[in-house]
């Protein structure tokens, strides 16, 4: 299953901000993390991450810095700014609302889903 383009676009910002909330990172590692977390299902062209990061930086949600990688190659590291933390919290609240609405409108209702989830987690 591949996630649709619009949904990827909508999810990209909170996902990236969320990953950076764990600590600073760089483009390739961010993509690896996304792929790891989604089992490869939330994916887009690698290059597209960078314009997104630049936009987040322009908006002031993240800060960047060029640093020398252990191998000697330069790498651009991104970290969440104070403002970005606020944005992330806000996005999280919004997504929670969406998730809870979706939970309730799926055919079969919420009751149908919860046990399976619980089973999976157990």
């Amino acid at each position, binding site marked *: 299953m591949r996630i649709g383009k619009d949904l990827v676009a909508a999810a990209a910002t909170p996902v990236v901000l969320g990953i950076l909330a764990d600590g600073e990172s*760089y*483009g*390739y*590692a961010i993509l690896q993390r996304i792929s790891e977390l989604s089992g490869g299902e939330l994916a*887009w*062209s*690698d*290059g*597209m991450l*960078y*314009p997104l990061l*630049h*936009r987040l930086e*322009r908006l002031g949600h993240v800060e960047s810095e060029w640093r020398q*990688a252990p191998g000697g*190659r*330069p*790498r*651009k590291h991104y970290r969440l700014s104070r403002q970005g933390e606020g944005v992330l919290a806000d996005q999280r609240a919004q997504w929670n609302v969406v998730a809870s609405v979706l939970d309730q409108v799926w055919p079969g209702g919420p009751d149908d889903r919860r046990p399976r989830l619980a089973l999976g987690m157990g």
Partner: protein
Amino acid sequence: MTEQHRATPPTTPPTLDALVASWREWMLRRDAVRTADVDELESHLRDRVEALSAAGLDDDEAFLIAVKRLGSVDDLSREYAAEHSGRLWKQLVLDDTVGGFGDGFGSGDERAADASGPPLPFHRRAGGLAIALLLAIGAGLAIKLVELATDNPTTVMRNAAVIVLPFLAIWFAWRRRAPWQALAAVGGAFLVAGLALNLFPFPGSTASGYEVAGETSATAIIALLGSYVGLWIATGVVGAGGDWRSETARMDFIRFSGEWLVYYVLLALVGVALSGLTVGVFSSIQVDVSQFVGQWVLPLGAAGAVVIAAWLVGAKQRVIENIAPVLTKVFTPLFTIMLVALVVAAGMQWNLVDGGRELLIAFDFVLLVVVALLVYSISARDPLRPAGWFERLQLVMLVAALIVDVIVLVAMVARTGEFGWSANKTASLGLNLILLVNLAYAAWLQLGFVRGRVRFGQLERWQTGYLPVYLAWAAILVLAFPPVFDFQ
């Protein structure tokens, strides 16, 4: 697998670095993508390649997959453009990286805008703006000093090129080290021109009844114009680093001259507008600054702008499209229509012949414009592109100009018996012939080029090779005309 590669050396895959280098070059062609972006993408690419190589792929295979994963270049550059739309408007950035060094006429070294090199010394920053400003102030003060010393505006105008252009030459000499022989030769040219202009006994007033820049002697005006043109070309020798034989250096000089003129006119327009505004604003509070503006700001600005325009041409060279070729593209069709209409009108009326003595001078200007339109379109043309409609249009323009000019020449030469050979007429006739020869052979070459028999390089070489002819004629105007025509 690696052994197989070794067994067939001709198909050895390029190294990863070579692949990355060509990929970088490809990416950097996009306006929306900057060096720093490509650096970042390269870092990503190499991370991906490393991971894939660790999984057992060859470098070149890993590279292909990594590039594919990056996404199509079109999509990517569209994303970058959406995020950085300002980049599509090229801006003149006065940081330390544009307008670098190496060439007199500007072409900066291609240091990336984000490269982290060692900081430049102050006088080299912003393409040497500090030095350019110093030289501009120097040129302005030199003009003012001569004016104060001689108290004669005519002397200042007559010596303007001799006074101001050395500062431009110093600017070039600083940007690009010219050999001392070239510097000495150019210095000598300035000296000779200066001596000729000031020691020739031009009369204070003659019976000719006209006056240009305070000069009443025709030969003085001719010498003055000749000194402007000749010393400008001589200054170009310094800008070419003394390499005046090189065709490319000459073409660069032609490009520089066109851009410089455009910038100078723009600076002059804005300068005059701001001066007018200043005078207006001060007069509204009953302070009259028109004296100050007229006597200090305008002469200093006019002289200083010579150097500042040269600095601008160098500083913005990689930033903005050259404007002279753009103007050429716009005005070549219009001017061609004008010339063809003139040919038709001349054929129907046959009265060009009765034109006054200004007719020849007017036609010198027509031919000058045609040469300029031709040269500046050549200067910006991709040499490998085959001839198209524009080249055919130029051919029409050239032929029309030649026809009209021959009509004028025949008429004027036939009538010189009535008027005799005045300095004025001889000078304009000489220029006319020089331009006519240029255009006639240029038209011949253009015809060959349109028919695919002449390579574009020959057109270029003809125009660059013609530069010394202008210099020689300018020298004759300055040095030979006044004595030959008794300084009248």
